[in-house]
C-alpha cells in the first residue's frame, strides 16, 4: 500500500531518523498518481537529495515536465520542488526555470519564482548577477501576490542595491495594504532603510534648534524643511496597518514611524504597541524590549499608557523585569509618587528576581529624580530590616550607589549598614558595605576599625570580591587612622599574600608597596592618600536600553543588542536629499479613458474612470463638470489609476488650490477586495438647489457624459396619466438612467407634467404611496403648473430589485389620481465597469444556477455588432465590456438596489443564430432580463 508506505517514510523524517537508504525506492515513485504519496516523495526528495545527488538527478525530468504544464499550480509546485533540491549540478536548470517562471503569465508562478531566487542564491552565490536581473524584473510586477516574495528575495540576495527600488517605490507603497501579512513586514522593513537613504530627517529643525542655539545665523540660513511627498506617501500608507491583527506587521509599522516620522506624529504608534501587550507573553517580551528603547528617546509618547505597564502577578519574570524597565524610564516628577507606590507593592512579591529588579528600579528613579531621593533612600533603609536576605542585599547595593551622591548627610545609614555585616551573607552586599565604610571611614571613625577587625577574622572564608574590598578597607584605614589599624592591615595583607586567587595576591602586593613606607618605596607612595581617598564620581544608573536605537527597532539585532548575521545597518539620514526624480515612472500617454457609471461596492452611485494616465483626466474633469448638480451629494469618482498616489494627490491638491472652482477633492487609496482604486471625491459646492429637482438639468449632464451614460440615443417615454383621464393634465415618465444622487440605490424616474387646461394647476404632489415591503419612494417637491406649461421633475424609487409596480396618488389642488409606475427589468440596473478579466472572473463566480443560457435567432435587422449593442443597451441599462473577439458582445451592470452583478454575453454564430448568456445572482432578474433581451434581439 503506497500511501501507508509514504506515511511511514514521513514519520521517519519527522522523528529525525535517517531514511536515506530508501532513496532509490522512494524516488521511483516520483511520478506516482496518488497526490499524497507524491507530496511525501517530494518531501523526502528535498530532504535527502543533498546526500544522494546522483539518484536525485533521476527525478529532475519529472519536474522539468511539470514546468511546462498548462496548469499554473502544477507549474508552480514543480518549480518549488525543483528549486528546493540542493544539488549543484542542476544550477543551470534551476536558473533557466526561474527565468522562465519570472515571465510566466500567472502571478502565482511568478511568486514561486521569487521564492526560488534565495534558494538558488544560497546554493550557488555565483549566480548573483543573473538573479539580480530576475529580481529587477519581478520588482516591476504589479500584483500584490508577487510583491512580498520578491522583496524578501531582494533582502536576501542584494539588500544593498537600493537603486532597484527607486522605480518601484511608489508602487510598493500603494500595493502595501493588499499584500499578505508576511510580505508587509518584509516590505516595510526594507522601505524603512530605503527612506533613510533617500529623504531628509523630518526632525532636522528640532535638532538644529537644540544644537545651534548659539548660532542663530546658521539656523536662519537653512531652508525650511519640506517633507518629500514620497516620504509622506510611505507614512500615510503604512498607518492603517497599525490596526493589523498580526503583531509583526504592527511592530514593523511602529519601527517605521519611530525611525522616519516627524516627532509630532510618532505618538500614534503607542496605542498600537500597548495593544500588543495583551497578546502572548512572547510577543509582549519582544514588544516591551522595543518600548523600553523607545521610551528613553520619546518618553511622552507612552506616558498616557503608564498603567498598561503595571505588573500582574501572573506575568513571567522576564516580562515583569521589562515592564519595570519601562516604568522606570517613564518616571518623572509628576508621576513618580504613583510609580513608587506601585513599586512598594512589587517588593512584597514572592518572585525574588523580580523584587531585586524592583529595588534597582527604585534606585534608578531616585538618581534620576532628585525630589524623591530621600524618600527612596528611607524606603530602602527600611528594607534593610527585611527578613529576606536577597532583598536586603539588593537594597545595600542600591543604597551604596545612592549614598555616593551625598554621603555627608547619611552617616547614620552607614552606621546601620555596618551593623548588617554580621548577618548578610550575599557577597555583593558585603562587598558594598565594606566599600562604603572604607570610602566614608571619616564619617564613622569609631566603627570602621572594628569592622576591619571582624573581617580580618573571617577573611579566609570570604568570597573573592569581599576579600578585595577588605584589602581596600584596610588600606584606606591605614592611611587615615594608622594608629588603630596598622597591625590589622599588616595581618590582612599577609593573609592575602598567600591567597589562592592571583588577583588578590597581586592586589595585596601592590597595596603593600604603596602604603607601607619602606626604604625602597617609590615615588608613588607619597600620593597614596590621593590615590585611595580621591573623590569618586557617583555612578550613573543607566538603562541598559540606552542607545539601543542605533539598531533598527524590531530587529533581532536590537533584541540581542548585538549585530546578527545578515543585519543591514540602518543608514543615517543624508545631509542633503538625493534626487527625488529617480522615483518618477514614465507613463504612456496614448491610452484614453473609458468611463461608465456604476454602482460601486458601497452601493453608491459612482462614476468610474479607468485610465492609465490619471493626470490629464483629472485636471480636465472639473472644467467639464456640470454646473447644476446637487450640492450635498457628491458623485464619487473612482479613478482606477495606475499612476502613483502621490502624484495624483499633488495634482488634486493643485486643482484644489484653484479655489474658484471650489471643489474639494480628497484622495484616498482604498483597499478593495478586487482592485485597488484611487478614489477622488469631488464635491460640487456652489450649486444652490438641493431637492429642487425641477431645475435639475438632465440634458446638460447627459451631454457631458453622453458617450457612455445614455448608450441608447432615445429614451422611451411611458404614460402615467392620459390627458383625458387627467382632465387636461398629462403625465409621462421615463427612466433617465442617471444615478439618483440623493439616494444611490434608487432608480431615477423623470416625470414630465403638461398642463393642457386653461387654468393653473397648483400643489402638484404625491400622496399615499402603496408599496411592496422594502420599497421606498423619494417624492419630488410640490410644484405648480401655469396653463399649457410643461415641467419635468425627477423622483427616486427603490424597487428593491423587483419589477413590482410602485402605486401612489398624484394630487393636484383639486383632484387625486391613482397611478402606478412599473419598471422594465432592464431599468433596475446601472452600468458597471469591468475589464475583460474582471468580467471573466466574475462570470466564473456566477455559474450553475446563476447562469441562464438561451439560444436565439437574430432578427432581420440585427446584422452587425453595432445593432446588437444598441438593442441590448436600449433594453437594459448596461455598459459594454471590452472584448477581444468580434463574435462576442459583453455587457455588465449592477442592480441599483443591492448592487448584484448582472453579466450579459451575446455570442453570434454563423447564419443569424446567437446564444445569450445572463449571469446574475438574482435568478428572477436574470430570467426576466433574458426574456426582454431575447425579444429585443429577435425583432
Amino acid at each position, binding site marked *: 500500500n503506497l500511501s501507508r508506505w509514504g506515511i511511514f517514510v514521513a514519520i521517519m523524517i519527522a522523528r529525525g531518523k535517517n531514511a536515506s537508504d530508501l532513496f532509490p525506492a522512494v524516488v521511483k515513485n516520483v511520478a506516482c498518481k496518488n497526490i499524497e504519496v507524491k507530496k*511525501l516523495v517530494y518531501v523526502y526528495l528535498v530532504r535527502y537529495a543533498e546526500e544522494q545527488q546522483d539518484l536525485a538527478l533521476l527525478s529532475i525530468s519529472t519536474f522539468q515536465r511539470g514546468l511546462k504544464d498548462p496548469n499554473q499550480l502544477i507549474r508552480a509546485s514543480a518549480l518549488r520542488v525543483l528549486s528546493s533540491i540542493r544539488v549543484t549540478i542542476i544550477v543551470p536548470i534551476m536558473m533557466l526555470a526561474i527565468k522562465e517562471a519570472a515571465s510566466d503569465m500567472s502571478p502565482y508562478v511568478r511568486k514561486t519564482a521569487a521564492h526560488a531566487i534565495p534558494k538558488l542564491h544560497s546554493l550557488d552565490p555565483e549566480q548573483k548577477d543573473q538573479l539580480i536581473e530576475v529580481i529587477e524584473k519581478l520588482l516591476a510586477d504589479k500584483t500584490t501576490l508577487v510583491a512580498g516574495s520578491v522583496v524578501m528575495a531582494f533582502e536576501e540576495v542584494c539588500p544593498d542595491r537600493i537603486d532597484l527600488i527607486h522605480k518601484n517605490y511608489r508602487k510598493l507603497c500603494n500595493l502595501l495594504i493588499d499584500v499578505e501579512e*508576511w510580505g508587509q513586514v518584509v516590505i516595510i522593513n526594507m522601505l524603512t532603510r530605503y527612506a533613510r537613504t533617500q529623504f531628509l530627517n523630518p526632525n532636522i529643525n528640532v535638532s538644529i534648534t537644540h544644537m545651534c542655539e548659539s548660532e542663530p545665523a546658521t539656523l536662519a540660513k537653512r531652508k525650511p524643511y519640506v517633507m518629500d511627498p514620497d516620504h509622506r506617501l510611505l507614512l500615510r500608507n503604512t498607518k492603517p496597518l497599525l490596526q493589523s491583527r498580526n503583531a509583526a506587521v504592527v511592530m514593523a509599522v511602529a519601527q517605521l514611524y519611530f525611525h522616519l516620522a516627524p516627532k509630532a506624529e510618532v505618538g500614534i504608534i503607542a496605542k498600537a504597541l500597548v495593544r500588543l501587550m495583551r497578546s502572548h507573553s512572547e510577543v509582549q517580551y519582544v514588544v516591551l524590549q522595543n518600548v523600553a528603547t523607545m521610551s528613553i528617546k520619546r518618553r511622552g509618547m507612552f506616558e498616557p499608557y503608564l498603567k498598561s505597564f503595571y505588573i500582574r502577578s501572573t506575568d513571567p519574570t522576564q516580562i515583569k523585569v521589562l515592564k519595570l524597565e519601562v516604568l522606570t524610564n517613564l518616571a518623572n516628577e509628576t508621576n513618580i509618587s504613583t510609580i513608587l507606590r506601585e513599586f512598594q507593592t512589587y517588593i512584597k512579591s514572592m518572585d525574588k528576581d523580580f523584587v531585586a529588579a524592583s529595588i534597582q528600579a527604585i534606585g534608578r528613579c531616585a538618581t534620576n529624580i532628585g525630589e524623591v531621593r530621600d524618600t527612596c533612600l528611607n524606603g530602602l533603609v527600611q528594607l534593610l530590616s527585611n527578613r529576606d536576605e536577597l532583598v536586603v542585599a539588593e537594597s545595600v547595593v542600591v543604597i551604596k550607589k545612592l549614598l555616593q551622591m551625598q554621603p555627608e548627610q547619611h552617616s547614620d545609614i552607614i552606621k546601620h549598614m555596618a551593623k548588617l555585616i554580621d548577618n548578610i551573607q550575599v557577597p555583593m552586599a558585603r562587598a558594598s558595605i565594606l566599600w562604603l565604610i572604607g570610602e566614608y571611614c571619616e564619617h564613622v571613625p569609631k566603627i570602621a576599625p572594628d569592622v576591619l577587625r571582624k573581617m580580618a577574622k573571617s577573611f579566609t572564608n570570604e568570597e573573592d570580591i569581599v576579600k578585595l574590598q577588605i584589602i581596600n578597607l584596610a588600606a584606606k584605614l591605614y592611611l587615615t587612622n594608622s594608629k588603630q589599624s596598622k597591625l590589622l592591615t599588616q595581618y590582612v595583607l599577609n593573609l592575602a599574600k598567600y591567597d589562592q586567587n592571583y588577583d588578590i595576591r597581586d592586589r595585596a602586593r601592590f597595596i603593600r608597596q604603596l602604603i607601607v613606607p619602606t626604604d625602597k618605596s617609590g615615588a608613588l607612595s607619597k600620593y597614596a592618600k590621593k590615590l585611595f581617598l580621591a573623590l569618586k564620581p557617583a555612578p550613573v544608573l543607566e538603562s541598559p536600553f540606552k542607545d539601543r536605537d542605533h539598531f533598527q527597532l524590531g530587529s533581532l539585532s536590537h533584541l540581542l543588542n548585538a549585530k546578527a548575521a545578515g543585519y543591514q545597518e540602518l543608514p543615517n539620514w543624508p545631509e542633503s536629499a538625493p534626487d527625488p526624480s529617480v522615483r518618477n515612472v514614465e507613463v504612456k500617454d496614448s491610452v484614453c479613458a473609458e468611463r461608465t457609471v456604476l454602482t460601486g461596492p458601497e452601493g453608491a452611485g459612482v462614476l468610474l474612470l479607468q485610465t492609465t494616465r490619471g493626470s490629464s483626466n483629472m485636471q480636465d474633469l472639473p472644467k467639464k463638470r456640470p454646473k447644476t448638480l446637487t450640492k450635498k451629494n457628491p458623485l464619487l469618482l473612482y479613478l482606477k489609476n495606475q499612476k502613483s498616489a502621490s502624484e495624483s494627490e499633488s495634482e488634486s491638491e493643485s486643482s484644489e488650490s484653484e479655489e474658484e472652482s471650489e471643489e474639494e477633492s480628497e484622495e484616498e487609496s482604498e483597499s478593495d477586495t478586487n482592485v485597488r482604486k484611487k478614489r477622488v471625491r469631488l464635491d460640487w459646492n456652489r450649486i444652490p438647489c438641493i431637492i429642487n429637482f425641477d431645475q435639475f438639468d438632465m440634458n446638460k449632464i447627459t451631454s457631458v457624459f453622453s458617450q457612455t451614460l445614455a448608450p441608447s440615443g432615445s429614451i422611451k417615454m411611458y404614460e402615467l396619466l392620459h390627458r383625458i383621464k387627467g382632465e387636461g393634465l398629462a403625465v409621462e415618465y421615463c427612466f433617465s438612467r442617471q444615478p439618483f444622487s440623493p439616494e444611490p440605490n434608487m432608480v431615477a424616474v423623470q416625470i414630465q407634467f403638461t398642463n393642457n387646461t386653461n387654468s393653473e394647476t397648483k400643489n402638484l404632489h404625491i400622496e399615499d404611496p402603496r408599496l411592496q415591503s422594502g420599497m421606498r419612494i423619494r417624492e419630488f417637491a410640490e410644484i405648480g403648473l401655469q396653463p399649457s406649461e410643461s415641467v419635468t421633475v425627477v423622483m427616486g424609487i427603490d424597487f428593491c430589485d423587483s419589477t413590482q409596480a410602485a402605486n401612489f396618488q398624484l394630487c393636484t389642488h383639486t383632484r387625486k389620481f391613482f397611478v402606478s409606475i412599473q419598471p422594465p427589468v432592464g431599468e433596475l440596473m446601472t452600468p458597471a465597469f469591468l475589464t475583460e478579466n474582471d468580467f471573466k472572473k466574475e462570470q466564473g463566480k456566477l455559474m450553475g444556477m446563476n447562469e441562464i443560457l438561451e439560444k436565439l435567432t437574430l432578427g432581420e435587422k440585427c446584422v452587425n455588432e453595432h445593432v446588437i449593442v444598441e438593442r441590448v443597451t436600449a433594453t437594459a441599462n448596461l455598459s459594454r465590456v471590452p472584448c477581444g473577439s468580434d463574435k462576442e458582445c459583453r455587457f455588465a451592470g449592477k442592480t441599483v438596489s443591492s448592487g448584484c452583478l448582472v453579466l450579459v454575453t451575446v455570442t453570434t454564430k454563423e447564419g443569424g443564430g446567437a446564444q445569450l448568456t445572463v449571469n446574475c445572482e438574482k435568478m428572477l432578474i436574470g430570467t426576466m432580463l433574458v426574456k426582454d433581451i431575447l425579444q429585443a434581439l429577435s425583432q
Partner: protein
Amino acid sequence: MIHSLFLINNAGDLFLEKHWKSVISRSVCDYFFEAREKAVEPDNVPPVIRTPHHYLINIYREKIFFVSVIQTEVPPLFVIEFLHRVAETFQDYFGECSESTIKDNVVIVYELLEEMLDNGFPLATESNILKELIRPPTILRSMVNTITGSSNVGETLPTGQLSTIPWRRAGVKYTNNEAYFDVVEEIDAILDKSGTTVFAEIQGVIDACVKLSGMPDLTLSFMNPRLLDDVSFHPCVRYKRWESERVISFVPPDGNFQLMSYHISAQNLVAIPVYVKQNISFFETGSSGRLDITVGPKQTMGKTVEGLVVTVHMPKVVLSANLNATQGTYNYDPVTKILVWDIGKLNPQKLPNLKGSLSLQSGAPKPEENPSLNIDLKIQQLAISGRLGSFISVGCDSLPAGPCDKALLLLTLF
C-alpha cells in the same frame, strides 16, 4: 528566515522536527534545554536564545515548546507570530494542539508545515487555503482512508492561493446561510488590598462564524463606535472604510474566525461585577494561619455570575490547607502552592465563603507578603462596555444566492 522547527514537550523530549532548508542537527536544541533548565518555570524561558551559530526563537503553548532555528537577521515578532499561527492551525485541524494529537496526525502535521513555509518564508497561512490543500481529519474520513487507502490531500487544486482575497475559499455553498457573531468582553483589572481599582480596562473580541454561500460582502456597524478606543482587524476588513465611516466592511472567510478585537479604556466605565472580602493571616507562632474569603456580587446588572473561580498563589511555606467551603469545591496543590476554589454560580442570597486554617512548615519564618488572588468569572448576555453591544447591526451588501431564496442572518450577541 525560519530554518528549522523542533517541537519539544514539557518533559524535554523532542518529538517532531522539520527542516525547510538544509538539515540542522538536533543537537542545537541543547542550548534550549540549558535555558529551559535555568528558567525553572516554562514561562520564563527567554523567547530568543543566542547560540554560537544560530538563534533559537521559541514559544510555549499548550505545554509544547515550538523552537525555531534562525540563522540570519529576521524580526523576532515575525517568527513568534508565525509559530503561534502554526499552533492555531493545529488547534483548528485537530481540535486541540497537544503532543498526542500531533503524534497521531504526524503526516498531516508534516504536510501542513510543508505548505505553510517555503524556504523559510510563509507561503500559505490562511486556514481557508490550507483546508483546500489538506483536508482536516474526521473520524469517518480516517476510517474510509484506512480501508480504501485514499488520502487527506485535496485532489482539487487550491485555487484560493491565486485569489486576491486569499482568506476565502471559492465556490462555497450552504443550504442554510447563517452568520453568527459572538462578542466576548473581558475586564482586566488590578485591585489593591482594600478593593480599589488600580487599573482596569475592557478588551473585547468579535468572533464570527460565517456560513454564507458565494462571495458575501458584509458590513457591521456600531451605534456608538467612538467607544472603541483601539481596534485591530482581520485582514479581510477594509481599513479605509473604517477610518472614514466607522463601518466594518468585509468579505468574510468561510467558517470561524476572529473578526476584530477592540479595547475600551475609559476607567470610569468599568464596573467590576463582584467584590471579594479576604483575610489571610499567618500567626507568629505555631506555624499556622487563617484564611477567610467571601465573594459577593457588586454590579452585575441583574445577570447571574457563572464559572466563578478564585485562585490563590500561596507562599512557599504553606504545607496544607484545611478549609471549609459553603459552596463549590476547593483544592490545594502542595507542589505548585496554588489554592483553587471553584465556586460555580454566584448566589446573591447566600454568599459563598471559604474559611479555615492553613498549616505552615514548622520553624520557617512567617511569610510577610499577602498572597494575590485571581478571580475568573463569566457573565452571559452582558457586555461590560454597555452601550456598545446592543446597537450592533449587521448589513449584507450583497446577499449570497443559495438554494434558499432569502439569506438568513442570525445575530447572537454575547
